[in-house]
């Protein structure tokens, strides 16, 4: 790639301007970390790190704050969402790449991706007015009747089904992350060399056997990267869960209890924090969320880059 050696002063200026714009990405990310860290210094010095994470207290009156309930809600809703979304997304990817007739592949792929374009506030609104009543009247009583009496598992389905709970929030989250996982899984599947698939078909493998023994092993790194990316996305989702989770600071075994996540706590309490330590604790929560999602997204990016490198060989 030849580039002229003689430097024009205007060219130097343009380069500096563009470089500044590019470096703003680093500046902003570092800025977020530094600002959140300094804003939460009050809470950090009062509650420490591990004590803050382990404490289930969230009491503005006694000014005692801990992140455990919010972190619990964040992790539980995200994991349940992944449990629903990942098999569905992989199924969709299999359908789009292997089963659907050619004229359907594009439209279905786009339709699924449109799910990702719907803003989260719409999901939240729909969740509150449509999904939550459906859950409360039909789905949750059914689950309770079916599984509520079983030992151990039954504990998950106790309480009065109100629809404003961990279960509804997880279902909404799962719908939101299906498209991310599905589109990355589809792209990874598509990278499987046709020759390899054809040789499997050639020795008499069924479609499912080709998917199971050729496509999936070949693309598992990419699919895994997509799952981690969805995980990172789901952790930070705010509005979709804010409507249906109830902002209740508890750690509960039942899926039918209201709970809270880091994002929901922030959305509900940030502008109402009336003392310095309260606001500082909220900033501390934001810092925890930032670090958590940054690390997970970095892992996802790393895995996806590895996968890309492997396929391009």
């Amino acid at each position, binding site marked *: 790639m030849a*580039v002229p050696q003689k430097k024009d002063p205007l060219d130097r200026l343009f*380069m500096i301007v563009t470089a500044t714009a*590019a470096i703003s990405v680093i500046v902003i990310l570092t800025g977020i970390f530094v600002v959140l860290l300094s804003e939460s210094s009050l809470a950090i010095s009062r509650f420490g790190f591990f004590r803050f994470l382990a404490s289930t207290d969230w009491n503005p009156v006694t000014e005692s704050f801990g992140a455990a309930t919010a972190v619990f809600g964040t992790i539980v809703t995200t994991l349940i969402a992944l449990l629903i979304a990942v098999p569905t997304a992989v199924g969709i990817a299999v359908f789009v790449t292997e089963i659907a007739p050619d004229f359907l592949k594009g439209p279905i792929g786009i339709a*699924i991706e449109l799910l990702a374009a719907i803003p989260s506030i719409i999901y939240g609104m729909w969740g509150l007015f449509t999904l939550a009543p459906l859950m409360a009247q039909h789905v949750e009583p059914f689950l309770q009747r079916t599984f509520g009496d079983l030992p151990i598992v039954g504990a998950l389905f106790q309480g009065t089904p109100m629809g404003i709970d961990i279960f509804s929030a997880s279902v909404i989250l799962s719908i939101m992350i299906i498209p991310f996982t599905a589109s990355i899984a589809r792209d990874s599947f598509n990278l499987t060399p046709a020759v390899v698939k054809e040789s499997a078909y050639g020795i008499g493998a069924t479609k499912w056997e080709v998917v199971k023994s050729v496509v999936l092993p070949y693309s598992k790194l990419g699919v895994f990267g997509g799952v981690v990316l969805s995980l990172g996305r789901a952790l930070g989702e705010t509005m979709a869960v804010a409507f249906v989770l109830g902002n209740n600071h508890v750690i509960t075994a039942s899926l039918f209890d209201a709970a809270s996540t880091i994002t929901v706590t922030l959305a509900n309490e940030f502008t109402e924090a009336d003392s310095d330590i309260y606001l500082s604790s909220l900033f501390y929560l934001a810092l925890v969320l930032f670090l958590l999602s940054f690390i997970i997204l970095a892992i996802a990016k790393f895995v996806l880059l590895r996968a890309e490198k492997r396929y391009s060989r």
Partner: protein
Amino acid sequence: MTREQKRKIENIAALSLSSLAAAFGLFWLVFILGDVLVHGIGALTPELFLNDPAPPGIEGGGLRHAFLGQIMITFFATLIGVPVGVLGGTYLAEYARGTKLARVIGILADIMVSVPSIVIGTFIYALLVRPLGHFSGWAGSVALAVIMIPVVLRTTEDMLSLVPWTLREAAFALGAPHYKVIVQVVYRGAATGILTGVLLSIARVAGETAPLLFTSFNNNFFSTDMNGPMASLTVAVFQYAMGPFEEWHAQAWAASLIITLFILTVTIAGRAIVRWRYKS
């Protein structure tokens, strides 16, 4: 049962499950969009666009203030975010192509795209709201701009990379300095792509609520003052949906319908343009 039959049944079962998964995904899309359409269309009246909110119980209130606020906040966010994103992408694709710095910034931008938007809200709150002592439309615009930058930067970089390097070499050979080549040759070749990226980034931020909660906040009155708290459609939807009044709910649905239609239209148009322009 023979081994053959077992394999066949397994095959049919697995393929049916996959098809079911696709139907499951489509089901939610149709369900959500249909629901928003059915609930929203009834409340779509001229008053919604022309009037400011009325006290609960009084007919004829609208969301004019929120439409205007949304447009202003998004407009200024675009004005801040797009130049930074386009120029940054230019640096990565032109001056720093293939360097370690370009790779690192590219990866960080990809991560930044997915950083929880509510965290960006708290960041801008600490930066622009608390020091000044009040919420402001500007803070909302900056928060949205921060979300736009990595999106625009990455698409610009990708689009510029699609312009063949030999085209630049032809211009270099005529003695043109690099900046002139970029502005007059490369940008021209990638204009459609960059514009599409900008459109998609606007669609991306138009539905954002969380970063506005602590920055532009909300305002129940008509205001064009970017220095004060400002209403936006998304925050209005949040407030109205959580509120106790039927009229509020109806207006929230109508506003949701408008937001959804806008975003889906822009998204589909953007994709169509990309497909048409870069189908090879």
